[in-house]
């Protein structure tokens, strides 16, 4: 969709809202009729029924609502003869007419304002869309120069006033100008001299004020620029906060922000000064005119050159002049302001050459199964600074051919792959696909038939599943999946998009291109996903992610029931494997060594992690029970020991010492507080402590896990008493607290725990170094046998990976990037060091798997792989060796190995 943003804002508005502007102008003119009638009516009420004009006798009547039109050639046409009314009925009749006019005026105003508002909002929607549309069409190099936050701030904030101005852009000047001219004309009619004086003053006002406001505009522009840069800097701080911490530069950032805010303040303050100065001059000029009327007009009247009636009429008419004049000047100010903003924003969004809109046209067509050979002719690549990444290269890549690019880092292979992936544009030469230039090819072909994998794949905010399928979503091809009730909304969306002139693409459609994934439909997709995940060696990661996190499983049918059923089988299997000792089960009668004292006391989980009314342990019921069972003293002593040990261990360390990260139950700031508590309590028992000290220490005891902290504070009798407490606690439990806790129950799925805890119904012993791997091995086998493995993997697909995939490790991100690419069927696959973060053994294994998989596909795709490890080059048909931006060898791996010592060296590295 092409829409020219170039030119003035007024032009843009006129082009897109011409018809609506004329319509609203007509409505405004029409609204003048009841408006002036309403102004006229009070006079008639006063003169007529109240003062009695025309009602000279009590029986006298007047015609009401007599309506006739004087038309040229036809003479007077009587529309309505009117009705005769007496004085009192006339009063009421006129009053009701007045009321009716008030309502009509109000309705007109309401209609006009909403209409103008809607007009503005639609145009704003259009401008914003056009801007983002341009971002999507910027050439890749542009993104190295711009800051994301600045672009976002322009699209979001800076264009906002443009919408507000749209409704007034044409109607206001016409209307206000008309009013002012009428008033001026009337003054001229009364006296040419006074009219000329008034006109001269208006002229001064109209020329001087805009000149003064020039400075205001400059300041406004500066304000906009500095604010935008400020937004860019804040965005940069957020993105780079890791580096800021690492190099202790937070204060440099503070200084920079302080400086910027200072500059913004100065500009804004100067703006205020000018604004009110202009206002002062403006109102002075407006007030000086009446002074001239009184002095000069009065003088003329005294001299007899002007009669008093005329002077009064002039003063009366002048009353109507400053209002519209001021509004007109204000409008002009607003106009210049938004014009400047518009020009600036459009300037920032104008890049040459922009990707042509046709290249990105929506295409629901199936992509061509096979692209012809790719030919590079004099392909030259350079970076921003102009240094050459790739010297002119002439190469040909054939369909179904597998090519390994090897060389030292930055040898040219990476840049070559990036150019094929359209991540950088050639500085000279071209890449041809048959007859066409790769860059002129619609993205519907180049973006589907060529799959590019970057070394640092980018992920969108969403789940693993969303990101895996991202490469399949080219066009809304499936049926709309929303509920029938939402169809009304959908209809509205379509109409509104049309009115705002933005394309209507249904987001609720199934965008997944199943053919492109090589499957028949949604029912086969999961099998494909599992296969791809396996190829990218992501299965284990995904299973762990599925088991270790909590998901809403309410839509998973019988899964939770099956998980509970599996508990018994799992125990038996682990016993058989001799591993049952590695799990510490949730046994109501036994203390769980791997859980905290607090968890052991409750034998359950809080339903809400941070309940608004405080935790269960803060309730009076719990506290009373702790005191009653005598556990209070035991836990108090325990807390005291923990505090003493911790103060002893950490007391001398500075609060920002990294060791504090290992201290889970206390913050560095708490150390002095506990130190004071310990000193206060020296030689005292639990009963002698204050309530606050006591609960502070007891709270500490809740976090204690013996195998983790190893202070030796749990005796066997104490363990028994804690287990006994559980029963007491549940026996008399008030209903409102019961609702807050989910107890461990061997027969039920725990929604507050993850799948792992639910399957094992216990904790993995933290003391055993290899317990985790061994248990997961058994668990994996069992899940396979039970047919739950893939279902649980599917749950893992619902894991949210955070912004840019930050909740995954670098290795996982690279594997996911690879898997996302393998979901697609393409003519060519371009892998640009996709597994650089992995160790060599692991990388070799995945390269092998991916090659096996892709070469089994029919038709076989062309593969271009920039290897980080040349040892795998033997898997490919052809090897191209790059050295300092030039391909130095090209041929089958064996031949290249014979000829090139560098390749041999790289192979053995």
């Amino acid at each position, binding site marked *: 969709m092409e829409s020219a943003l170039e030119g003035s804002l007024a032009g843009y508005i006129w082009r897109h809202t011409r018809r609506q502007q004329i319509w609203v102008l007509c409505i405004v003119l029409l609204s003048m009729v009841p408006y002036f009638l309403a102004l006229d009516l009070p006079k008639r009420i006063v003169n007529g029924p109240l003062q009695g004009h025309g009602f000279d006798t009590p029986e006298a009547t007047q015609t009401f609502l007599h309506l006739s039109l004087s038309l040229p050639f036809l003479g007077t046409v009587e529309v309505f003869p009117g009705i005769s009314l007496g004085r009192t009925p006339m009063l009421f009749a006129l009053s009701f007419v007045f009321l009716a006019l008030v309502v009509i005026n109000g309705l007109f105003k309401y209609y006009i304002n909403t209409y103008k508002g809607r007009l503005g909002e639609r145009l704003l929607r259009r401008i914003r869309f056009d801007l983002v549309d341009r971002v999507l069409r910027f050439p890749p190099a542009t993104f190295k120069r711009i800051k994301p936050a600045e672009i976002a701030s322009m699209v979001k904030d800076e264009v906002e006033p443009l919408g507000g101005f749209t409704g007034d852009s044409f109607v206001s000047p016409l209307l206000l100008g008309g009013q002012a001219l009428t008033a001026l004309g009337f003054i001229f009619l009364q006296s040419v001299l006074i009219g000329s004086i008034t006109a001269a003053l208006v002229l001064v006002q109209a020329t001087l004020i805009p000149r003064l406001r020039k400075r205001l505009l400059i300041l406004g522009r500066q304000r906009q620029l500095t604010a935008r840069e400020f937004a860019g800097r804040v965005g940069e701080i957020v993105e780079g906060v890791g580096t800021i911490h690492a190099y202790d530069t937070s204060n440099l950032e503070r200084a920079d922000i302080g400086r910027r805010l200072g500059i913004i303040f100065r500009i804004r303050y100067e703006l205020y000064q000018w604004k009110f100065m202009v206002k002062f001059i403006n109102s002075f000029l407006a007030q000086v005119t009446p002074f001239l009327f009184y002095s000069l007009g009065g003088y003329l009247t005294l001299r007899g050159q002007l009669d008093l009636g005329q002077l009064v009429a002039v003063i009366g008419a002048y009353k109507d002049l400053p209002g519209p004049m001021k509004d007109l000047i204000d409008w002009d100010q607003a106009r210049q302001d938004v014009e400047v903003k518009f020009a600036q924003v459009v300037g920032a969004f104008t890049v040459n050459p922009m990707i042509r809109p046709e290249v990105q046209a929506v295409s629901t067509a199936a992509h061509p199964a096979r692209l012809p050979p790719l030919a590079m002719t004099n392909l030259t690549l350079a970076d921003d600074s102009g240094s050459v990444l790739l010297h002119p290269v002439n190469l040909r890549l054939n369909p179904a051919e597998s090519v390994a690019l090897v060389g030292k880092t930055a040898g040219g292979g990476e840049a070559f792959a990036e150019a094929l992936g359209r991540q950088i544009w050639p500085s000279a030469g071209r890449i041809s696909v048959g007859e066409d230039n790769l860059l002129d090819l619609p993205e519907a072909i180049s973006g589907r038939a060529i799959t590019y994998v970057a070394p640092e794949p980018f992920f969108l905010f969403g789940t693993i599943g969303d990101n895996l399928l991202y490469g399949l979503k080219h066009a809304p091809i499936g049926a709309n999946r929303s509920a029938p009730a939402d169809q009304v909304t959908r209809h509205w969306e379509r109409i509104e998009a049309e009115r705002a002139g933005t394309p209507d693409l249904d987001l609720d459609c199934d965008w997944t291109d199943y053919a492109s994934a090589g499957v028949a439909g949604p029912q086969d997709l999961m099998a494909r996903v599992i296969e791809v995940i396996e190829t990218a060696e992501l299965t284990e990661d995904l299973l762990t992610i599925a088991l270790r996190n909590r998901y809403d499983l309410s839509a998973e049918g019988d899964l939770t029931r099956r998980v509970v059923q599996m508990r018994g089988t799992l125990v038996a299997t682990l016993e058989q494997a001799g591993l049952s000792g590695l799990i510490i089960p949730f046994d109501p009668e036994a203390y769980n060594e791997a859980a905290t004292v607090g968890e052991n006391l409750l034998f359950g989980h809080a339903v809400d992690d941070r309940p608004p009314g405080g935790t269960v342990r803060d309730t009076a019921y719990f506290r009373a029970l702790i005191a009653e069972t005598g556990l209070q003293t035991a836990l108090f002593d325990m807390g005291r020991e923990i505090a003493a040990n911790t103060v002893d261990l950490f007391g001398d360390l500075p609060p920002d010492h990294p*060791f504090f990260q290992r201290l889970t139950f206390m913050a560095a700031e708490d150390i002095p507080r506990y130190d004071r508590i310990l000193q206060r309590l020296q030689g005292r028992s639990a009963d002698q402590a204050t309530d606050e000290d006591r609960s502070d220490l007891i709270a500490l005891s809740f976090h204690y896990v013996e195998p983790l902290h190893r202070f030796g504070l749990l005796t066997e009798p104490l363990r028994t008493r804690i287990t006994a407490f559980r029963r007491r606690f549940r026996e008399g439990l008030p209903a409102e607290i019961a609702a807050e806790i989910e107890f461990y129950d061997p027969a039920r799925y725990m929604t507050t725990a993850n799948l792992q805890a639910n399957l094992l119904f216990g904790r993995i012993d933290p003391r055993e*170094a*290899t317990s985790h791997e061994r248990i997961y091995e058994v668990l994996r086998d069992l899940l396979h046998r039970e047919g739950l493995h893939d279902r649980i993997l599917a749950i893992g697909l619902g894991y949210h990976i955070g912004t840019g995939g930050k909740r995954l490790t670098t290795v996982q991100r690279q594997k996911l990037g690879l898997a996302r690419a393998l979901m697609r069927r393409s003519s060519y696959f371009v892998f640009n060091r996709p597994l650089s973060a992995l160790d060599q053994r692991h990388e070799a294994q995945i390269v092998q798997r991916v090659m096996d998989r892709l070469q089994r596909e029919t038709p076989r795709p062309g593969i271009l792989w920039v290897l980080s490890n040349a040892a795998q080059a033997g898997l490919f048909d052809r090897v191209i060796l790059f050295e300092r931006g030039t391909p130095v060898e090209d041929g089958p791996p064996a031949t290249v190995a014979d000829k090139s010592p560098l390749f041999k060296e790289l192979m053995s590295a």
Partner: protein
Amino acid sequence: MLLNEEVQILRQVPLLAGASPAHLKLLAFTSDRLRYEAGATLFRQGEAGDVAYIILSGTADVLVTSPRGEIRVAQVSAPSLVGEISILCDVARTATVRAATPIEVLRVRKEEFLKLMQDFPDVALQVVRVLAGRLARTTAELTEARASQLPAQD
């Protein structure tokens, strides 16, 4: 075994002899206490490593991969430190360590070990002393090996 007992063992590790009991207790507290069954691998040669292990009980084999398979080059028993080369020099594991008997270890993270050396120069000095001692021994062994090879070449 509790913190205090761990400290008793740590005091016998030569590399840590420079640390006071309080420092050792802190090191023990910030480390993970783990058990390995016999035959379990602590780490493999060639892997990147960011932890060291202090063997508190039991014996472990130190193995090196050679063209003829794995060769046992040493056996270490409690109390001793293994895997410290990787965290001190940022190199991949130079050998594989596997439990010969069930063993108990403290797993020490790189950052914490380095921080301990930074904070307590006595520890750092002791580390230098022990490593220099090893280097001297290795050099002596190498000289001897060369010397014994010389007549063979003649």
